[in-house]
């Protein structure tokens, strides 16, 4: 999967979870950029991303992601 495909899929997840078709995420997107993104929605986001890519994050990762780019990096390493 190339970077573009990865972000296309990530965008799908974000749009579904936040029910907002206008969302477009980049590697620097953070919780501050999306209005409804709070700690409770973060759980849903993580679960949805895991499902979408068929992967599982560990606790350390979930606690340390600072932006979408770091999530994407972790996904890529797990799919490799």
């Amino acid at each position, binding site marked *: 999967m190339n970077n573009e495909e990865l972000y296309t899929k990530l965008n799908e997840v974000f749009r579904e979870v936040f029910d907002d078709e206008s969302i477009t995420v980049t590697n620097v997107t953070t919780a501050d950029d999306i209005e409804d993104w709070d700690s409770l929605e973060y759980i849903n986001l993580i*679960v949805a991303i895991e499902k979408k890519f068929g992967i599982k994050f560990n*606790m350390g990762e*979930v606690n340390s992601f600072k932006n979408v780019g770091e999530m994407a990096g972790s996904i890529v390493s797990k799919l490799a």
Partner: protein
Amino acid sequence: MKELEYPFDPGYILTNKKRIKRQLLAEEREFVKKNVAILGGYTTNDIKLVLELFLLNYGIMPSFYESEYNSFYEDAVFDNAQLQAFKPDIIYVCTSNRNVKVYPELSDDEKAADGLIQNEIARFSSIWDSLFSKYGCPIIQNNFEMPLFRLLGNRDAYDHRGRVNFLSRLNAEFYSYARAHEYMHICDINYISADYGLKEWSDPFYYHMYKYALNVNAIPYLSFNVANIIKSVFGKNKKAMVLDLDNTLWGGVVGDDGAENLSIGPDTSEGQAYYEFQRYIKAHKDLGILLNIASKNDEANALEGLALKDSLLNKDDFIVIKANWDSKDRNVRTIAEELNILPDSLVFIDDNPAERHIVTEQIKGVSAPDIGEVTRYIQNIDRNGFFEATVMTADDAKRTEMYKENVKRAKLQASFSDYNDYLISLKMKAKIAAFDKEHLSRIAQLTNKSNQFNLTTKRYTQEEIAEISSDKDYITLYGSLEDRFGDNGLVSVVIGRIVNDECLLDLWLMSCRVLKRNMEFAMMDTLYEICAKKGIKRIRGFYYPTQKNGMVRDFYKIMGFDLTNEDESGNSEWLFNVTADYVKKNTVIEV
């Protein structure tokens, strides 16, 4: 909504909660509003959000009260102005084995373990007692799922120090309480966690990360289970099944293969699978579920299949059998009409996806679960919780008989040209009396189930009915009706609230199984007598239209009331003067 019926995709539901909610709210339908309080022993946010979807799908629009994190005990036992103001219609105590205060130590003897059980039960009983005394509404309580580890290995199950043993004993105590208190409903997470897979369900990741005592991915199964209890408590269970025959109740096509070549019975593996399925369906009869058939077959062939020695289900187990070449949606509609129940209380069971599609497309509210292949039929129907038995009454087991008697009545009626002669020939006897203890559960059940002959569609819990029955400011009446064909059981309920010299009719309903039998006139006669005796001058009736109760729009007019008020949405108020010149309206039922 198909996405919210079992077997559902939990990932889809979790991810798309917001969109699904939007879609559900856009549907043109009536919702009943209910206040649902969730008192949690761990994070409950997503449990609440997914529960909302399932409830909306059942036509219930919830408002939620959610306790602060892990404060279920404090919320229940101490004064809680916020919860008081919220006025819950139902309370869900969502706990897990992580909420057990003290487990036995290996050094504990049996007596010490007994003591721990008693302490824990005392703690939980104080929650339930306190909640019920303050809010008087039904309570749903999770039992305990099994522990994730077994320190003693298999011995954990039977040794008093083992957690498996300890939790099983706590569960048994919960069940005793539930049996003794009708307002208490157990949410059996012990079963659904096993069904889901305990090691997945209890994956500690979700507790350490988010303080969820279950896997977030399992939440839809928990919420669905809770929604099924709630919809059952509020009278939204299904009432009847319409079953296909070929490749549903037996293997093969009776018209092509011949009855003797069908797969049914314990002799072949396929036949055995259908046999087990028939046994499962047949058991629903005693639960009061009405069984019917819609099959594309010549009737003679269908009956030949049902007459097979190895067919557990036979002709007499069904109320209406439609074996013909009409479309299925048409037959399903006719069955609903003949049973006198609404199509949305039907479950349509057919192995053919195309038939299921046409039925759900053509008839709003009918459920037609994707039953998969024969070895999965039972689980795919069962997991849907269509018939969740929160209330069981003596009437349930007799229901099929009652509906069959109705079919006989219909035949008798056809032999009379004068309807009144027919009514007299029925030799009807009614018992009309104030609410009493033994009928409380049936009365509450009726207030929640009746939609068509129901003037105000006000729903009551059993607790509310009990309260009203002992309140002297109320006139309460129930009516049961029997005739030459059998006992119809308790079929009509009237609740009048006395305000000064007036009686305000909060509720008047009748089961559709006794439509056009003049039972409503007999109820009116008795109501008049009681009001006259109590010195009441006026009776006021109210009609609030819903999508389902159009048949009683003019009910009070027929009863001799005068219209006093009507607003633009059709809500109307009616007045009846209690005067000495009242002429009895019922002439055909002996009361």
